[in-house]
């Protein structure tokens, strides 16, 4: 019951970035380049939710508190939600479904290709996120969902390569990701904790 309440609150909180975009849009306050602004904003939030999802296990390993792990799926799905918005804005408002230009853009520019790959790889994870799918896939579910690490690396790389010169922003995300991954590795190899059981 308690957990359900927490989940409800977090669900509402996770929609705040979207609500903010609507609010700014209504007030004509999306900067001089609104398309770029909402493209960046949704992309940033996808990364934030991805790192949030990845933070739950390290949190448990360090603090011993286990219940946040149950919020992981929601964080992951919100990552997918914002990534979908991000991709949709790219296709629609940025390129107006000019397929020729979109394909060229993806093939010619490494940062677009990397981001696009991360998005494609996250689709199967979102589709198999239900309890039913988890049961159905059994041990293969775990293997499939290990892809989240690859997605996270690609996502951060996408951000890093997109920035012209001042890479402090993306580096912060890279640092957080590295930290989260090293906590896992530390516990796995030095403390011999089986991460799957907890």
């Amino acid at each position, binding site marked *: 019951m308690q957990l359900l309440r927490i989940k409800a609150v977090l669900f509402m909180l996770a929609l705040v970035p979207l609500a903010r975009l609507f609010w700014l849009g209504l007030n004509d306050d999306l900067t*001089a380049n609104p398309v770029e602004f909402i493209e960046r904003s949704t992309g940033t939030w996808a990364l934030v939710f991805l790192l949030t999802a990845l933070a739950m296990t390290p949190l448990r390993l360090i603090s011993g508190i286990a219940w946040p792990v149950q919020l992981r799926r929601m964080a992951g799905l919100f990552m997918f939600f914002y990534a979908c918005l991000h991709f949709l804005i790219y296709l629609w408002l940025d390129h*107006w479904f000019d397929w020729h230009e979109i394909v060229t853009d993806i093939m010619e520019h490494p940062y677009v290709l990397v981001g696009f790959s991360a998005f494609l790889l996250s689709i199967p994870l979102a589709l198999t996120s239900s309890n039913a799918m988890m049961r159905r896939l059994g041990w293969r579910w775990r293997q499939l969902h290990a892809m989240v690490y690859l997605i996270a690396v690609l996502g951060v790389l996408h951000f890093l390569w997109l920035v012209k*010169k001042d890479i402090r922003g993306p580096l912060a995300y890279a640092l957080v990701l590295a930290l989260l991954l090293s906590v896992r590795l530390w516990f796995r190899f030095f403390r011999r904790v089986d991460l799957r059981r907890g």
Partner: protein
Amino acid sequence: MRIARKPDIPSSEITPREVFENRRHFLKAAGFSVVAGTFSGLLSADALAASERRRISDLSKTDYGRDEKLTSYKDITTYNNFYEFGTDKGDPVVHAKLFKPRPWTVSIEGEVRQPRQISIEDIFKLAPLEERIYRMRCVEGWSMVIPWVGFPLSKLIRLAEPTGNARFVEFVSLADPAQMAGVRIPVLDWPYTEGLRMDEAMHPLTIMAVGLYGEVLPNQNGAPMRLVVPWKYGFKGAKSIVSIRFTEKMPVTTWMRAAPHEYGFYANVNPEVSHPRWSQSSERRIGGGLLSPRIKTQLFNGYAEEVGQLYAGMDLRKHF
């Protein structure tokens, strides 16, 4: 690079707004009925706080870009790439507020008959100011239409009297960590430098801008004086220029140093030559809102007729 800076103006010497606004009346009353130079209106405003908007009194309109729809003042002055004031495009409008574009001296150096320092006031007296409405295409794939106020750079070059060895002109921007927060961070190799080939610099389309929308150039747009070369990507337009150096060899610009295979010396707008990060075939015109589609980018930003001959016989893929 050192620039002589006078101490800040004591507040007792700042012209009160009412006096400034009635300056013509005031000058007449004081018996100064003849005011030399075309820039008198601006000069008397120098002591005012930089963040105030000030009209430039004498400027002639030209036909350049008459048919273009202007980008709004708000967009032009709140969406700027001016890394000396921060790398976010919303930074300059905030961080340049306290910047002091007066007093200002520009140093003329290098291959010239006589190196010297010229005050910004003297530079403004060089030529009548004109409005030039130019398209501005940023290398990042967005563009604006800006009503600059300025004068042809050629006038300044003639005054500088370059020697026969001068084949290039280098522009150096101010890099003052006390006033420019961005300079304290080594994102770029400060000071910011840019350059032009002599014939590009002498071209009638190349201007030094000192204003926009009929007003004194706001700090975040490169006050007191910045370069505008409309057929090149926006980053060629060095802002807050403190030194103009004539050289025999092609200068290495800041962006060339930062990423040599991304930014070349010429940086001519060219939809055919794509940047490793951005396709240059189209652009988004700022001001169209969320639902504005991209427009096709034109060779030399649509100024091919005027400037195409400068690059006759050159491989524009190689000399990007």
